[in-house]
């Protein structure tokens, strides 16, 4: 390392001085002459049909235009919405005449200033015809429980045609790609495109994430779809495995799905009921696994939905020049946002210019931008003037996104020595009202990787609720999986009198650690390398675990109880094609293009760390922060 001129050396990231002097411009910091301001009329009901009269508002001085759902393009069925979520016919469109959650935007007013716009909103006569609504997935699964949407209450994939000869190949490709260390994206491409190259091309053409999370998985009905879907889910430990679909993907569909009174009675008051699932995968013989166990624990856990709440809301400002849309917005990936804004506004990507120099946090909620960006974009066209739509914190609580909560029941079988012989897991994903999220599935694959059970069954349901829309949030699905499994593991270790580090070490992934469902060839996908046992050993030593364990008993001493803990958590990283493209050109110039979906941090450090010497000064183009 001694000859290294850059690694280990101090440097100032190019964004930092602008940020600390207040010169850095975020979306709301731009001004354009003649800029109008937009305000939203949002639903006061969680589910309703809406009619309204805007004539009085339009007649008000200073009101320039009103945008309604009728001005929005239709859903782009089959399009990838980023993070592998696939658009259905019921996809979100930005404005709606049938709000599916309280606070969903119905229309937007552009006026000469915000006050006038807000006064115009007050002048609009709105009539709501309420529809049934539900905010708790379990309530929706009751025999006569309400459905969040008129079409039904769960996401599922239509049964696919019988297995084609290529299906097996695709699955193998997925495994191969993963084994080659290219990670989730490539494998996803393989699973969804019938071939890795094709999959990546398709993703690139759409400009959307090739490494999305596997969306609501297919019903476990056999055939090609479950097989390839499983591969997609399996290919990424965190479940960010697929464009969420098999072969030429059939978009997921909403179905009505109810459990029986018997299912509820069987569970009793303190456990999650487990009626039929839409989705299931398995590896090994789980029944045999439980027979080998010395301890069996069966617990219900819940992780709640949590809003992303970036400090910068999803404010956007738009104007048009020469037939092109110029949009100042907040995004985690400019590349993905061009494509999504094009789709949301009904334009082709070459007509969309996204300007985003700084982003005040996204945490997964702004990877393809925000669908609300379409509102100032189309309102600007209608009003023939630039439009700034400031999103207030209150708006953000509604239209900002949230991590899907997961209700899960986990049955764990453990041998005396701590080895996990079987896991039987059932995860219910609180999906919100729109397109299918894959968190429930990725919670399962993450657990299968982190704790290497000898056998495992995963079942899941993706249930629609009339709650704010959900999307990926820092380790989507993985965080929920770890969050619900670690306490069970700790409890088991305690019951068996085992050390908490030791129980994680004996179950830790190592080498070509397998994960996820069994593929058609009977084997699981696997990671290229894992050194978790070594990490635990190192942590054990550096933390002085044994000494601290003795002193931090967890018993109350005076006002305080001190305890110590340990947890293991993996997640997949990266998006093929978007992480960074490092090109050395024949003339000796090096270019580095980066537009990865980061949460907040600067991307510019990467090329500087990888380049050495004065000749290789990188032409870095950090696109996202």
């Amino acid at each position, binding site marked *: 390392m001694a000859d290294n001129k850059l690694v280990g050396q101090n440097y*100032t*990231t190019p*964004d*930092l*001085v602008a*940020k*600390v*002097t*207040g*010169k*850095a*411009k*975020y979306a*709301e*910091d731009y*001004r354009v002459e003649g*800029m109008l*301001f937009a305000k939203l009329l949002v639903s006061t009901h969680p589910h309703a049909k809406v009619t309204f009269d805007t004539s009085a508002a339009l007649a008000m*001085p*200073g009101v320039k235009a009103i945008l309604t759902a009728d001005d929005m393009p239709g859903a782009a069925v089959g399009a990838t919405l980023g993070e592998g979520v696939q658009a259905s016919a019921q996809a979100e469109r930005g404005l709606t005449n049938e709000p599916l959650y309280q606070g969903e935007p119905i229309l937007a007013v552009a006026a*000469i*200033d*915000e*006050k*006038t716009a*807000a*006064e115009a909103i007050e002048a609009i006569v709105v009539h709501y015809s309420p529809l049934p609504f539900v905010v708790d997935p379990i309530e929706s699964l009751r025999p006569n429980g309400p459905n969040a949407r008129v079409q039904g209450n769960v996401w599922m994939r239509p049964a696919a045609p019988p297995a084609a000869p290529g299906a097996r190949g695709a699955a193998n490709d997925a495994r191969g790609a993963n084994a080659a260390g290219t990670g989730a994206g490539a494998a996803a491409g393989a699973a969804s495109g019938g071939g890795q190259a094709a999959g990546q091309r398709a993703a690139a053409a759409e400009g959307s994430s090739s490494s999305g999370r596997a969306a609501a998985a297919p019903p476990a009905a056999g055939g090609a779809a479950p097989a390839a879907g499983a591969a997609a889910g399996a290919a990424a430990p965190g479940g960010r495995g697929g464009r969420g679909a098999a072969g030429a993907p059939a978009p997921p569909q909403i179905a009505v799905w109810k459990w029986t009174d018997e299912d509820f009675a069987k569970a009793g008051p303190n456990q999650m009921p487990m009626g039929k699932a839409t989705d299931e995968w398995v590896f090994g013989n789980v029944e045999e696994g439980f027979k080998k166990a010395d301890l069996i624990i069966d617990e219900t856990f819940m992780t709640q939905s949590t809003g992303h*709440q*970036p*400090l*910068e809301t999803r404010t956007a400002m738009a104007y048009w020049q020469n037939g092109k849309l110029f949009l100042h917005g907040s995004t985690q990936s400019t590349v993905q946002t061009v494509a999504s804004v094009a789709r949301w506004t009904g334009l082709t990507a070459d007509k969309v210019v996204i300007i985003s120099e*700084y*982003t*005040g*946090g996204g*945490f997964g909620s702004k990877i393809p931008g925000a669908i609300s960006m379409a509102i100032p974009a189309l309102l600007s066209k209608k009003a023939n003037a630039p439009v700034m739509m*400031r999103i*207030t*914190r209150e708006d953000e609580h509604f239209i900002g996104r949230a991590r899907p909560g997961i209700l899960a029941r986990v049955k764990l079988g453990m041998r005396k020595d701590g080895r996990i012989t079987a896991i039987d897991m059932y995860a219910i994903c609180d999906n919100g009202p729109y397109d299918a999220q894959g968190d429930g599935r990725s919670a399962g694959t993450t657990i299968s990787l982190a704790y290497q059970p000898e056998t495992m069954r995963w079942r899941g349901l993706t249930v629609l609720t009339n709650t704010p829309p959900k999307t990926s949030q820092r380790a989507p699905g993985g965080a929920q999986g770890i969050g619900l499994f670690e306490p069970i593991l700790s409890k088991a270790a305690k019951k068996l009198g085992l050390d908490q580090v030791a129980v994680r070490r004996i179950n830790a992934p190592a080498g070509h650690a397998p994960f996820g469902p069994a593929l058609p060839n009977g084997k699981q996908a696997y990671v290229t390398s894992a050194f978790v046992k070594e990490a635990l050993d190192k942590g054990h030593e550096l933390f002085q675990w044994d000494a601290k364990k003795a002193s931090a008993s967890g018993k109350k001493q005076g006002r305080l109880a001190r305890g110590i803990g340990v947890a293991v958590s993996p997640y997949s990283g990266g998006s093929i094609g978007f992480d960074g493209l490092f090109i050395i050109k024949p003339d000796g110039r090096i270019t580095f293009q980066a537009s990865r979906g980061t*949460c*907040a*941090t600067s991307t510019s450090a990467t090329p500087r760390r990888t380049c050495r010497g004065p000749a290789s000064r990188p032409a870095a183009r950090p696109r996202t*922060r």
Partner: protein
Amino acid sequence: MDDTKMSEQTSESVSRRGFIKGVIAAGAVASSSAYLFRTTPLLGQPSAPGSVERLITLNVNGQDRRVDVMKQETLAMTLRYKLGLTGTKLGCDRAECGACTVLIDDVPHYSCSVLTHTTRGKKVQTIEGLADPATGKLSAVQQGVIDEQGFQCAFCMPGFVMAATGYLKTNPNPTRQELAHGVSGNLCRCQDYDKILTALMKGAEHMRNA
């Protein structure tokens, strides 16, 4: 400016806790209208009630600025939309997140919850006014942030830097815990608090060494 003198003055009259309490009370009054913003009068058209603007003079970053403000206009809005000082951020617009913190007579205030006309005759300082206007030399706290690479998305940064700058005027040699308390009215959603504190402590060190 004599820091010691300043610190005596401010510590006598204003405690952070008392200040926050005051802001919360004021916020309840202001927030219902504060988020609404009127850019320009409707030319030739009758003005809506409450939208009458008055020309006042504000002292911002050492300069006298003449500006038309509504009586219910918040300082954050005036700074951002009328004076072009967009370094001051609006995170919540209701006195919770601290992103809009500026100094008013050297005391940190949430500018989203201060009515602009109440700052007449006072000295307002924003993030843009910290660096030396002649040389561009960064302030001690700003330099601390650069040295330690505090902050990630940095939307909260201007507020933190202003709050820390104000706090250090009252306590130039704080412990880490004291400084944490000093900026406890500021939120970082990136959860970068540890690095932020390291950066701000570095800033305090620079300030003492200056």
